[in-house]
């Protein structure tokens, strides 16, 4: 009964029935991001509306389709009609949509932002195809192909969409053949460093010993990156199938998923998916008659950025403090419990089924020489269209930020690639190709896929301080360059943002940063100074403004700001007086208010209320002014 083809045929039948739906389908994106935007309240509203109005529809909960700025998304598909997607839905709007589609002859199709499928009939009116929307059009979806389309809690949905064909192909090719296929595909590790996947595998396969381990690194620690979470929540079986393929290739019989405890929904989906695999004979002894035994255990990480580093991750799985050790020996030779171990990132694993299913030749059509395939990114920050994207390697930063992301809120200033370990690149780098080597040459890194866009309201000195503050707190403390050096970097940066810096501090930052990079034991320390060094290189005038003029051009560094009331604009409404926590603002009703700078703690409450309250006059301004330094 566990024959995969029999199961697949049944799954396909079910899937076809769902697609040729005799009843309306309502898709709601309920990944973490959708939930944060209010998807659960919408789900509730839809259920209630169906019940109250006595309507029939099937609700399908799907993962994240990517454009977070459109969340929450509600898609409705009437029988024989394309699936229509509605963005930024509120519970009230959801009630309206359900009634309009299910009860009216003329559903509110005009409210949709996109539709799925090829239908260009009158029904869709002028609504474009979802994948023709500017954010989606330049993307190539390989890893994320199922996200937003299948119910992640249903193994049958995955099976019906060519799921677990990759592992069957691997079984047919044998372990060596599988490694060869991945080599020809040119797949490089998507965790950040871009090391060729096949090379690690080969070393592990050849390493002596009968007990070998595979670990899936799902400890996505970059604060501002959520690619792995979205994939695990939206299509967990893709990652699990990738684990089967990798384990089969290297000869591992035990697998671990090291996942952040902060991803509870992903853990729930993984646990469910693993039990479904067991029931379908995809885990355990002699999987699908191949003679290959494999089982997977979930290990919840307890929150440490450094555990993204391979040897630190292994120490953590073993129940120790997550501290890296020097290499060699590499984990492929001596890893978990001293046995040969391969650690692959979630995205690397999620790519594998596609390569094995479609072949290396198919995969190499995407990307550029030496950088084949696609990469997912979390495009966030001061960007108009924030979200999760997948693009072929070699696309320019300009295309990603301006075509996909729609540009920045205000004038573009910089982009940080690679999260806290990456670099901050200025406008002149916009035409840089996004590949491992080009980003490296610019002083940044590809990293795991955080892309933070900044506009002129972002202070790069403050940003460098923020990243260093993060890496310093996450430094495990084992080696001195990272432990002591990063502390001093933060101290100097803090001094500068407080307006107490001196020109010689800049040279000190450079020397210290260089030393930390060269002297640190692991990737955390070796990359930690990148944000400081790149901002110093590309935004030096901004540092100089802070140290020489005590001036923050972006109006961010609090010690360099002043709050003021513009008398001509003040309506004397007393709203600011009522929110000021220190009594710094005074003034009788209908008279211009007075702001006592010596009492002001710059908490921003008055500014917000003056800006957004109807009766106030937008009279409070925040300013940074050039002052000569004390020298």
């Amino acid at each position, binding site marked *: 009964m566990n024959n995969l083809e029999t199961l697949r045929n049944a799954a396909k039948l079910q899937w076809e029935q769902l697609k040729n739906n005799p009843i309306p389908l309502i898709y709601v994106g309920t990944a973490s991001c959708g939930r944060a935007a209010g998807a659960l309240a919408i789900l509730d509203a839809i259920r209630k509306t169906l019940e109250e109005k006595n309507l029939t529809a099937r609700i399908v909960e799907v993962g994240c389709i990517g454009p977070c700025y459109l969340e929450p998304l509600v898609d409705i598909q009437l029988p024989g009609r394309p699936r229509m997607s509605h963005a930024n839905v509120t519970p009230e709007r959801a009630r309206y949509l359900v009634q309009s589609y299910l009860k009216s002859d003329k559903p509110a199709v005009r409210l949709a932002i996109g539709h799925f499928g090829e239908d260009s009939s009158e029904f869709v009116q002028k609504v474009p195809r979802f994948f023709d929307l500017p954010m989606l059009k330049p993307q190539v979806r390989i890893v994320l192909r199922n996200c937003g389309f299948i119910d992640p809690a249903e193994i049958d949905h995955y099976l019906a969409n060519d799921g677990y064909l990759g592992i069957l192909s691997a079984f047919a090719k044998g372990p060596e053949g599988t490694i060869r296929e991945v080599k020809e595909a040119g797949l490089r590790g998507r965790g950040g460093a871009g090391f060729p996947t096949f090379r690690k595998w080969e070393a592990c396969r050849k390493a002596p010993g009968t007990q070998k381990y595979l670990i899936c690194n799902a400890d996505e620690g970059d604060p501002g990156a959520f690619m792995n979470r979205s994939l695990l929540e939206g299509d967990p079986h893709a990652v699990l199938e990738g684990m089967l393929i990798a384990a089969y290739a290297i000869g591992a019989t035990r697998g671990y998923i090291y996942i952040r405890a902060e991803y509870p929904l992903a853990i729930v989906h993984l646990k469910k998916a693993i039990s479904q695999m067991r029931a379908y004979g995809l885990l355990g002894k002699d999987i699908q008659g191949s003679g290959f035994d494999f089982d997977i255990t979930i290990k919840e990480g307890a929150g440490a950025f450094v555990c993204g580093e391979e040897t630190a991750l292994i120490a953590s799985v073993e*129940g*120790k*403090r997550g501290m890296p050790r020097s290499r060699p020996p590499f984990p492929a030779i001596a890893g978990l419990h001293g046995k040969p171990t391969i650690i692959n990132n979630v995205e690397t694993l999620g790519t594998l089924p596609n390569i094995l299913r479609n072949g290396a030749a198919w995969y190499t059509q995407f990307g550029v020489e030496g950088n084949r395939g696609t990469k997912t990114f979390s495009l966030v*920050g001061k960007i108009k269209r924030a979200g999760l994207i997948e693009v072929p390697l070699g696309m320019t930063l300009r295309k990603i930020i301006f075509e996909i992301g729609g540009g920045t809120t205000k004038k573009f200033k910089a982009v940080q690639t690679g999260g*806290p370990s990456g670099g901050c690149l200025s406008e002149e780098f916009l035409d840089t190709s996004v590949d491992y080597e080009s980003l490296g040459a610019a002083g940044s890194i590809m990293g795991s896929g955080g892309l933070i866009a900044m506009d002129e309201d972002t202070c790069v000195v403050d940003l460098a301080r923020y*990243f260093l503050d993060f890496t310093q707190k996450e430094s495990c403390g084992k080696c001195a360059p990272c432990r002591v050096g990063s502390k001093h970097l933060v101290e100097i940066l803090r001094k500068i943002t407080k307006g107490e810096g001196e020109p010689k501090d800049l040279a000190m930052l450079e020397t210290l940063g260089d030393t930390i990079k060269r002297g640190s034991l692991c990737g955390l320390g070796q990359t930690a100074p990148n944000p400081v060094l790149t901002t110093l290189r590309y935004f030096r005038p901004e540092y100089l403004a802070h140290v020489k003029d005590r001036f923050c051009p972006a109006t961010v560094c609090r010690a360099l700001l002043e709050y003021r009331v513009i008398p001509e604009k003040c309506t004397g409404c007393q709203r600011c007086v009522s*929110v000021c926590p220190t009594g710094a603002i005074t003034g009788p009703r209908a008279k211009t208010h007075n702001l006592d700078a010596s009492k002001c703690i710059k908490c921003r409450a008055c500014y*917000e209320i003056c800006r957004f309250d109807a009766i106030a006059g937008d009279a409070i301004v925040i300013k940074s002014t050039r002052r000569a330094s004390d020298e």
Partner: protein
Amino acid sequence: MENNQYQKTMAGYSGEEGDLIPILQGIQTDLGYISEEAVRGVSHFLKVSESQVYGVASFYSQFRFNPPGRNSVKVCLGTACHVRGGQILIDQVERELGILPGQTTADMRYDLQRVACLGCCALAPVVAINDDIYSRMTVVLLKKTLSEYE
């Protein structure tokens, strides 16, 4: 009572070194924090020193060592929230409640944590109180929202 609870958590494990973190996670789920007594109990159970147990627990940011408040306030300081003003929000909470991240108010009404990314960067800045997530938060709104939690 507390003693029984963590004894129960540990009963599910065989006592290997690799069990340390899952046991601590189990205790925190049940008790809300890692008490001194729990550290002693785990040390006894796994036959490792108390300092090793505490050393591991204090290494990871997930573990807390004081009882949580009735309402848990989490301010996101992920990158996207930072560039959109997350720091101003956490300053506001600290001032309003008179506690620092990791602490609990004396009346046990609130505890405060800074978190790195709640996963809704497009809606930054974000504050979570218990299971409710508030997006595009402002200083004025935050003050009002906090007061709604008893």
